[in-house]
């Protein structure tokens, strides 16, 4: 008899090998094609320079912090300090290593930031929660102080400011808005892709196990301390690259003051509002935090400019912005991305009730 020797039933035999069915993510591809192909030619200087570049860089910074806080559960308020390391390290590399191509300098800046992040991650093996947060606060102030105190970092310029060195790639200048936009976009897309794969890998699963309960994670054999430090290093790498892009692709200059505690809070708010433990959430959060004030400002000018006292108008915008943050957090504490997901689910079954 040539009957099958499979002991399993047909149903099990046909069960999918992969847990997540993979199909081509069309919406994402369309988005990427638009971002790379259409926007550079469509967007004017204002859109590229003042809207898209800062939005992308802040998304990347949010992504970096999210890997640490959202995925590994280690709260940090030192994000801007690591951005400063990335910016100053990239500057140093471009200045002191002649002929170093830009991508390598960015990578180097990121790696130096990662090393510093690793160093400040060491206490995480002993302390947790609020206490760890305080050590990251110390990192923030320490790094800010270092980049003010030691003139070597800013090449002995009297103002303590570093300015963008040559932005070129294989002899092609990236100084135009389109060039800088494409540089930022490519970096962000590449690093986001790495992050997506990272959180799906063994490393990411270990991080999430630590986040959910580190004792349990240790019991099942995950080297908790090592993975916490790794999270600090990887997170700082992302923040470092974001810091370098912020300084050179967006502002054109930077000083320690550009990476103060307020920037750290801004990035923390991006991940809290966008959604902890979500990759797409960083982009939504960055859009909310960085673009909404600009939108409110424009809308306010357009609607009331000239009628309402300008000072009151500005204060009103702050009130609206704050009220929106509170509303969204009450409505969905897990962040905007969760809100959008719920909306999508609802639309899928419409007109039936969710």
């Amino acid at each position, binding site marked *: 008899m040539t009957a099958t020797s499979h002991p399993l039933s047909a149903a099990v035999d046909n069960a999918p090998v992969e847990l997540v069915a993979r199909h081509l993510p069309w919406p994402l591809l369309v988005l990427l094609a638009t971002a790379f192909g259409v926007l550079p030619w469509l967007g004017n*200087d*204002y859109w590229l*320079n*003042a*809207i898209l570049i*800062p939005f992308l860089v802040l998304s990347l910074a949010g992504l970096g912090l999210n890997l640490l806080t959202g995925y590994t559960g280690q709260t940090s308020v030192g994000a801007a300090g690591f951005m400063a390391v990335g910016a100053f390290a990239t500057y140093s590399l471009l200045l002191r290593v002649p002929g170093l191509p830009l991508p390598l300098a960015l990578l180097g800046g990121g790696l130096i930031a990662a090393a510093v992040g690793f160093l400040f991650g060491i206490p995480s093996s002993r302390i947790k929660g609020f206490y760890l947060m305080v050590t990251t606060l110390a990192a923030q102030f320490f790094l800010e102080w270092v980049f*003010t105190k030691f003139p070597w970092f800013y090449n002995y310029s*009297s*103002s*303590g*400011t570093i*300015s*963008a*060195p040559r932005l070129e790639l294989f002899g092609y200048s990236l*100084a135009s808005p389109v060039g800088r936009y494409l540089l930022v976009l490519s970096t962000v897309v590449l690093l986001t892709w790495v992050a997506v794969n990272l959180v799906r890998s063994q490393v990411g699963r270990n991080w999430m196990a630590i986040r959910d309960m580190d004792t349990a994670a240790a019991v099942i054999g995950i080297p908790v301390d090592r993975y916490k430090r790794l999270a600090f290093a990887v997170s700082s790498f992302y923040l470092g690259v974001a810091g370098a892009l912020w300084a050179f692709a*967006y*502002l*054109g*200059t930077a*000083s320690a*003051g*550009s990476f103060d505690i307020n920037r750290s809070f801004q990035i923390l708010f991006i991940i809290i509002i966008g959604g902890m433990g979500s990759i797409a959430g960083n982009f939504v959060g960055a859009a909310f935090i960085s673009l909404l004030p*600009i939108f409110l*400002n*424009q809308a306010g*000018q*357009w*609607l*009331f*400019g*000239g*009628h309402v*006292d*300008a*000072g009151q108008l*500005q*204060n009103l*915008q*702050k009130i609206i912005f704050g009220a929106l943050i509170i509303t969204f957090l009450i409505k969905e504490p897990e962040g905007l991305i969760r809100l959008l997901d719920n909306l999508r689910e609802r639309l899928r079954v419409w007109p039936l009730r969710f």
Partner: protein
Amino acid sequence: MRKTLQYSLVASLVLGLQASPPEAWAADDAQFIPMATYRVGAYASSGIPWWAGEIDYFRYINEVEGGVNGVKLVWQECETEWNVDRIVECYERLKTGQDGAPTAFFFTHSTPGSYALMEKGAADRIPLIDGGGGRTESTDGSVFPYAFPILMNYYSQASVGINYIAGREGGLDKLKGKKIVTVYHDSAYGRETQAPMKLLAEKYGFENIQIPVADPGNEQSAQWRQVRQIKPDWVFLRTWGVSTPVAIKTAARFGISVERIVGDVWAGSEADVIPAGSAAKGYQALAPFPGGTAFEIHQRLKQYIIDQGKSDLKDTRYFGEVYYNIGLINAAIAVEALRTGQKKFGNRPLNGEEGRWAFEHLDIDAARLKAIGFEGLLAPLKLSCSDHEGGGAARVQQWDGQQWVLVTDWIRADHQLLRPLIEAKSAAYAKEKGITPRNCAAER
């Protein structure tokens, strides 16, 4: 509740759309002036009177003089909270003008902002004006065609401070062996005077001691204890914001005579001395922008703007404050530059390139100052291709417990001494960025 909210929102929308504001609508026969303001945030107390002064002067030009040679001024505000990233956003938003009205210049009103926009301004051909601040080496217009640290750069501030002290001591030769401590805000702004002070100390033989105060400077006991130990002859105070009143109060606590403290340009407003209370009585500060309402322009503004209820000030007690007058002076310089440009290009709105030409040929002499009502409020100002500062003089004002009193006439900075330092730095910048300097002699 919800209904009311909806109605009021709709109503406000409709209202907002209906009545078109007179200033916000620009046309292509008007001159657009972008305004990067900071009416909220940590520095709002300086920002609010500042823009009131600027806007009041522009309103005066529009309504009383019928514009600049008939060209109306229109402007739009953009809130920055004095954040560099917001200043960059505002610059990008407003640099192309509005509804056909071109932008001739951009007031950065922030030294970090001037640094950040330096290359963007040059690429877009928009002159960046930063009165009493900015990047010092951009005084050399051959390397920095589009940056104007107009009126008084930081080197000049140091030099005028030392000249004033020498005057009090009885001559520059009396400075030898004196101890002059500079207490400075530890930032780009505060550190900018270190190089000229070093040079001046070498030349005049005084002892130059620099003591930093970390931002924001709420607590300065350690610094002033150190000052006390040094027993200086003079203290040059280069603080900003909250660190100034704290410095004055702490100095008094350590028994340092306030009469021996000279504040610089940005440590000499009402907001700097009123919080210090009686400790500030006798404190003096450099004033390229003096306070007070005793000037001719204030009479005109009072008649046509303040008394008509057209002022941007919510509280007219601020009229004539130091920051209000800074706004006036900035606005007047802008208007005079536009006039200069119109002489060459015709009575029409100017673009950024024409704006640069206008600023480089700006010449406000004593007669002109008298005509526009700024006599005593502003020193004669003459810019050129190689000198983007133009002025470099300040008066000194003293706080009598109630108001600022001007105690000297205009004191000039030692430009011959400082110029080589500026040229060395601008040459280094040109080398780093691969810029070929313009030939200013050929352009004349």
